[in-house]
């Protein structure tokens, strides 16, 4: 029987770590992910797990030490947010190219400039091309569930890639919600033992990690990483099915909400999907308009075909990005969804919004306005604002 609890997102992920009892965790504190290493340090201090914690002096060293530990053959994880992830940037690429199944609990927070400690996706979106699998959560339950699936995906022989389990800073990391936890023995059986094939401390063979690869070899390593990402799609779905068999909770690349008969869709990532669902219920109840939502769970690898299929019959689509990429056009999710629809020769109208940067609230009213806008676009076939910000302070307010 699953255990009913009330936990914050950070507590939920820490609890998953406790149940997994990984070998090594290097970490450096940064808001809002700091609680995760704190909880783990407490589990260790009380003899509840035998993980070795490395008190590194920076996030760069955190990922560097994680890389060393993982290459040595240890099941390894770390946690960070925002600038911490930015400081790891160089190492993220090395970890992926070394094909090390490190798991990173990322608590999404805005990147500095100006400094801000609240949620947006600028940190993980900045790392989207680093070769890491990225899985996002709407709720504490999803953060916990995703974390349990992380190591089996990362360590799968057809994948061998690092995995980033993302949740929104403060909104889920610090917000306490009802949650269902799985029993320890079930978690242990699901996650399994880590048995690497090649590792530094293997008595039967020596191993060299991190070569200088000249032009003759470099490109093949990238193609191999691409193949691992392609393979990851299958493995992610296999793990989701296995997880559903254990818990009854169903996961995929994304969640389709009220999409069966929908004409207007919002595509979104993370906790704001909950607010969007509330707006959908309200709109359907009061107007009967056919609105729906697609919430991306797996952003890397990107489920291009599946997403295009889910959106193909929409009259209009709004993609909501919680990160800028300063192309002066789309945000990162907007660009990828548009590309997916183009590949599928979809004629659906599409607009791209930016919302929630630095933790700005997005409300049910905001979502209602987006759906109204989509309806107008579908009727007029005219898009006046291809890219716009939601909830931006007006000049008069300054």
């Amino acid at each position, binding site marked *: 029987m699953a255990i009913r609890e009330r936990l914050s997102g950070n507590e939920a992920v820490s609890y998953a770590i406790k149940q997994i009892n990984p*070998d*090594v965790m*290097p970490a450096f504190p940064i808001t809002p992910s700091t609680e995760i290493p704190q909880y783990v340090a407490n589990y260790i201090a009380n003899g509840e797990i*035998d*993980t*070795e914690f*490395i*008190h*590194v*002096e*920076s996030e*760069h*060293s*955190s990922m*560097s*030490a*994680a*890389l*060393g*530990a*993982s*290459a*040595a*053959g*240890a099941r*390894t994880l770390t946690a960070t947010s925002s600038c911490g992830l930015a400081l790891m940037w*160089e*190492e993220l690429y*090395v970890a992926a190219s070394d094909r090390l199944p490190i798991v990173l609990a990322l608590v999404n927070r805005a990147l500095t400039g100006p400094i801000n400690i609240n949620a947006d996706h600028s940190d993980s979106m900045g790392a989207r091309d680093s070769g890491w699998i990225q899985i996002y959560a709407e709720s504490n339950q999803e953060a916990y569930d995703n974390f349990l699936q992380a190591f089996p995906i990362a360590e799968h022989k057809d994948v061998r890639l690092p995995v980033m389990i993302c949740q929104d800073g403060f909104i889920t990391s610090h917000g306490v919600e009802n949650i269902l936890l799985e029993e320890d023995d079930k978690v242990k059986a699901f996650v399994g033992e880590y048995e690497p094939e090649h590792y*530094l*401390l*293997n*008595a039967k063979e*020596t*191993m*060299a*990690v*991190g*070569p*200088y*690869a*000249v032009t003759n*070899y470099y490109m093949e390593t990238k193609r191999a990483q691409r193949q691992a990402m392609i393979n990851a799609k299958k493995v992610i779905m296999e793990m989701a099915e296995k997880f559903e068999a254990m818990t009854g909770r169903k996961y995929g690349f994304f969640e389709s909400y009220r999409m069966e008969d929908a004409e207007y869709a919002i595509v979104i990532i993370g906790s704001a999907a909950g607010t969007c669902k509330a707006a959908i219920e309200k709109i359907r109840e009061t107007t009967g308009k056919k609105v729906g939502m697609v919430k991306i769970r797996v952003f890397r690898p990107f489920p291009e075909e599946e997403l295009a299929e889910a959106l193909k019959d929409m009259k209009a689509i709004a993609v909501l990005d919680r990160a800028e990429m300063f192309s002066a056009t789309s945000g990162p999710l907007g660009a990828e969804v548009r590309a997916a629809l183009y590949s599928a020769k979809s004629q659906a109208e599409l607009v791209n919004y930016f919302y929630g940067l630095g933790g700005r609230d997005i409300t049910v009213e905001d979502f209602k306005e987006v759906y109204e806008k989509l309806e107008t676009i579908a009727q007029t076939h005219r898009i006046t604002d291809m890219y716009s910000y939601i909830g931006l302070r007006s000049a008069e307010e300054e």
Partner: protein
Amino acid sequence: METAYNFKEVMNRPERLAPGHRMCAGCGGTIAVRAVLRALHPEDKAVIGNATGCLEVSTYMYPYTAYEDSYIHNAFENAGATLSGVETAYRVLKKKGKINDNYKFITFGGDGGTYDIGFQSLSGAMERGHDMVYVCYDNGAYMNTGTQRSSATPQYADTTTTPAGKVSAGKVQIRKDLAAIMAEHHIPYVAQTTYTGNFKDIHTKAERAIYTPGAAFLNIMSPCPRGWGYDPSELMNICKLAVDTCYWPMFEVVEGKWRLTYEPKKKLPVEDFLRPQKRFKHLFKAGNEELIVQFQAEVDRRWEELAAKCR
């Protein structure tokens, strides 16, 4: 654990850095690696770490590795952190009964990866007290990228970013004393050495560093024929002049206790060390006599300071 130094026995141990790598003739870095790895007891396994640099790109060029042991290169500035991760994995996997063999952990970085860009990572690893040895092969500049100055470059050296010119006498600043900074981390073992005589000094220190439990730091002056401008065959003479002029003192700090391991019978003037190197050529031009006087004064000051610590 320690046995009397037997030159023949030590030199006849199997090489743990195989030949066929691409390091230059007359390079001190390669000698550092071979000398340190010879101090490993043959029955012990090891994981060798490496910061990005000449050594890394010349000894592990895909698909060939020159290392007989397991080896990990990660990036330029994180050899300390990376090996601390390996060492931690070893401890936990041993505790969990997943591995049984004995491993030692030794990482190599040049002065760029150690004094400068990797300084924080090194400091963290030493402070945490991982059972590992960090070996700096100090050739006094960023040699892999073509002899740019580092904080280990001696004053007045002509480098590609501190060129001697009409209005420049080379590097302005004096060098950082990294061994002393590491000693101030209060780790169990710190030593500074180079290649002299029958290699007893470097061998003894490497063995102590490897077999002292906890963090250890070895600073090895490793001349670079291209960056310093000497004939490759002159390597050992350059090292001898470095120690006999007291430019490069050899010492160790055992549990906080400083000890000189070599004192020249007759301290030679530092110009004897400077003269054979092209990087100091400009110091011997008429009108620059004062620069050598200053260089000598700095060598004397540091030697006195060190001697006082060792008393």
